[in-house]
């Protein structure tokens, strides 16, 4: 139930983003690629290749000049996780770059302003549900975790 609400919010937000021509999501450049080291976390020095069948793949990206580290393991696809890690790194680096005191990326600033505008238009209650892109995701993940735990508990008891 809660989940669907969040989905529809982020969908609305995306439409709003398009309508209002917000600054694009930060891009991972060739230069960033050369400034980063990538590590795959494979779980140590045990068996490899045909001897073992791993189901998860964790990617860690480190930006040497700034020391920022991001990891991604959200999907089963290594390729997808690599792309996701790069997107996040680009986001972090852009945040670092912006010297507006708040450490916010232009996209986030615009999103926040958009959110404030919507606040005026809508009732206080519903506008509260508007969250920044990242926060929505974090919360969604957290809820999924809780849900998983609940199911796990059910399975273990029954």
């Amino acid at each position: 139930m809660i989940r669907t609400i969040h989905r529809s919010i982020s969908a609305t937000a995306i439409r709003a983003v398009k309508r209002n021509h917000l600054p694009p999501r930060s891009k991972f450049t060739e230069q960033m690629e050369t400034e980063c080291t990538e590590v795959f976390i494979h779980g140590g020095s045990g068996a490899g290749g045909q001897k073992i069948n791993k189901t998860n793949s964790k990617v860690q990206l480190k930006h040497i000049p700034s020391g920022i580290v991001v990891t991604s393991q959200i999907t089963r696809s290594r390729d997808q996780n690599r792309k996701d890690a790069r997107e996040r790194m680009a986001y972090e680096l852009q945040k670092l770059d912006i010297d507006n005191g708040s450490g916010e990326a232009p996209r986030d600033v615009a999103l926040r302003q958009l959110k404030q505008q919507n606040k005026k238009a809508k009732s206080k209650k519903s506008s509260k549900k508007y969250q920044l892109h990242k926060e929505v995701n974090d919360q969604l993940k957290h809820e999924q975790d809780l849900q998983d735990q609940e199911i796990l508990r059910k399975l273990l008891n029954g």
Partner: protein
Amino acid sequence: MLMAENRTIPHARQELRWLIQKFGSNNSATLFRACLERNRHVPLQYILGSQPFGMLDIKCKEGVLIPRWETEEWCLNLTDSIKRSKLINSGASNWKIMDLCTGSGCIPLTMINETKNLFSNQTRLYVDALDYSPIAIDLSKLNFKTNFDNKVALSQNFNVSFNIQKCNILNEPEIIQYLGKYKEKRKINILTCNPPYIPHHEFIKDVRSSVRMYEPKLALIGNLEFYKNLNDLWVGKNLIDSFVYEIGTLEQALYVQNNLPSSWISGITLDSNNKARCIFGYNKEANIDYSKIFNHFKQTAKVYASIANSDVTK
């Protein structure tokens, strides 16, 4: 329940999430059965029915090896190196890539997917995939269909053709006869292979129970036979210009290196877990300058040090 195959709670939780994504959380009976299977070491990919490989979604079925990340890694390194070499846009001649022991078809299908845009009216790509197992043949056909012909109609939109054939690779006359059917394009530009490479004595000792119990032995157990076949037949009878073979032990790679003719350049690459993972080689007297591909291939992977040095001194 999922802890049987997962070492940590976050891993187990993540797997549970994937199982829920597939089976939903409402139908708890199906989900419960899936968890139970997992508890009995059934590979997750057989339960979910697929494994992502590069940009592709590769269907997995019992009886066929599940693609590994190591294979995905070198395969994408290779296609990346081909793209960067610019060899294809510049030459007007057709290309042929052959994958032996193709299993699910993950390697040749990725080769097609990553390079199909390079082939135009004048240059055609022929990709061949061979395996001895009928289940693997069927699955690789299915994977071709679901990833291409149901989506992009490969033959209509790209100048690429794909052919799958049941063949015993260790049977030389059978191979020669198969190759003899080709009139247009005989010489193979790149031969790829991930042969069964786990030596018999290591099978019980080192192989994870999920692999040992559920994946086919025909796909796993082997030692030097396919590497010997590479030297004797494919290189020996001058059927190929270059090759990349996955390896399980350094001994297998050294066997290949020690038996290559002097006109061949070779190297051993490491995977990102620092294990020796591939042996590659190319004929420096071939019409095409394959160093343009393999110098980059060497860089994208780490190179097994002492071999890299001996390579330079050659």
